[in-house]
């Protein structure tokens, strides 16, 4: 009798167990479908962000080339032309001086053109990685003469995926542009800390700071940076610096 009761209990238990297993399988299929859809959405978002970042970097590169052509190369070539136009062939000594001056200017122009072609960001990221691309960007800002930038790398650089690096670069570029345009800063510090688990990137300035209340609705740039960080699995944080200005922290997991 005792045995038959135990058998009944076992059968009931087994039936419950079976029903639970069937439920697990159904839930697993449903969950897989939902997660797959969410994953596809993330992939689409990533592709969209990547494309947008590429376009924006390209646009910034064009702007930088245009500025370089207008402010530097164009000016030097105009000056060189002026030197050549005012050549007085009867005065050999003066002509030689002017000719040498024109040659120097053209050499400088050639060097500037080389720099322009070398500074195509998207190319640098895929060829040399994130750090050289950021160095180039910092150099461009330094050339503007508005503020004094400092760029430091701590730890052993870890290789990040090219697409991820491109999006990180665009986040930094956007942050730097905001500082140049709005912060009225004189000092800019960009630090990268590489560690085994993460890459921590900090951008700080001594400018006027960021008013969250005034900018919370219109800060599309800020939203862009936050969204981009989320898409690559990074964490974006913007805080007022202790003394003055703002400190931006971007934490990117390496795995």
């Amino acid at each position, binding site marked *: 009798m005792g045995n038959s009761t135990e*058998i009944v209990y076992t059968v009931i238990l087994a039936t419950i167990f079976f029903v639970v*297993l069937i439920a697990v399988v159904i839930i*697993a299929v449903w969950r897989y479908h939902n997660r797959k859809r969410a994953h596809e959405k993330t992939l689409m978002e990533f592709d969209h962000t990547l494309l947008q970042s590429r376009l924006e970097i390209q646009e910034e590169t064009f702007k930088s080339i245009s500025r370089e052509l207008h402010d530097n190369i164009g000016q030097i070539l105009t000056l060189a032309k002026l030197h050549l136009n005012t050549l007085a062939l009867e005065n050999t000594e003066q002509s030689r001086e002017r000719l040498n001056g024109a040659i120097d200017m053209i050499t400088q122009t050639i060097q500037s053109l080389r720099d322009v072609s070398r500074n195509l960001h998207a190319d640098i990221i895929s060829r040399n990685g994130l750090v050289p691309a950021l160095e180039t960007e910092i150099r461009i800002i330094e050339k503007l003469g508005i503020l004094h930038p400092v760029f430091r790398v701590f730890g052993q650089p870890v290789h990040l995926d090219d697409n991820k690096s491109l999006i990180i670069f665009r986040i930094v570029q956007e942050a730097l542009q905001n500082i140049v345009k709005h912060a009225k800063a004189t000092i800019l510090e960009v630090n990268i800390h590489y560690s085994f688990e993460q890459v921590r990137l900090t951008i700080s300035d001594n400018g006027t700071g960021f008013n969250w209340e005034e900018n919370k609705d219109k800060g599309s740039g800020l939203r862009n940076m936050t969204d981009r960080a989320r898409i690559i699995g990074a964490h974006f944080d913007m805080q007022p610096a202790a003394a003055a200005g703002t400190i931006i922290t971007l934490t990117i997991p390496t795995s």
Partner: protein
Amino acid sequence: MKGQRRFLPLSIVLTIQVAMEFTAAWLFVRKMEHEWMYHIYAPIDYALFCIYFMQLVSPKYRRWIVVSTIIFALASASISYWYYHFESFPGANINTEGVLICIICTYVLLNLDVRRYDAIYKNPDFWISLGVIIFFGGTFFTNGVYTYLNEIDKVQAKKLFSIVNTANLIQYTCYIIGFLWAIPRRSSIQLS
């Protein structure tokens, strides 16, 4: 399967299963004791399944699976020695193994990698987990009843194994489907 080293523990499990079933049948025909084999088989079977499933879970849970393997080996040896004396069929051991594997399979099924495969039915891990769950679900019931029934009526107890046979058949069908989906497919054809 070249490039599919992660299925190696599962292949070893299947090889051991086949070898063990043949040996058990041979011992049974010669009217020799064969139940003792299952006492040794249970911890090995569980450990190999764990090695396979450990590749599909996060590192946090991997540690728990390793701990469960050690605890199960010790518990299984103790039950076999003190309770079954390595003589009768180790229903409790195999049921415990089944419940543990079903818990791991449930976790795996609910957290299948969505990045590699278009649909769930193309995922080998889905079929393998499903096969394991069906098999252990079937044996969970059979083993429990078999232990009691074997004491009353040995002939009737043997008949219970038709449930295990069906579960076995479904399990191996699932494995075959899983292994077929694991074969790398060419994404393009080359025209000569």
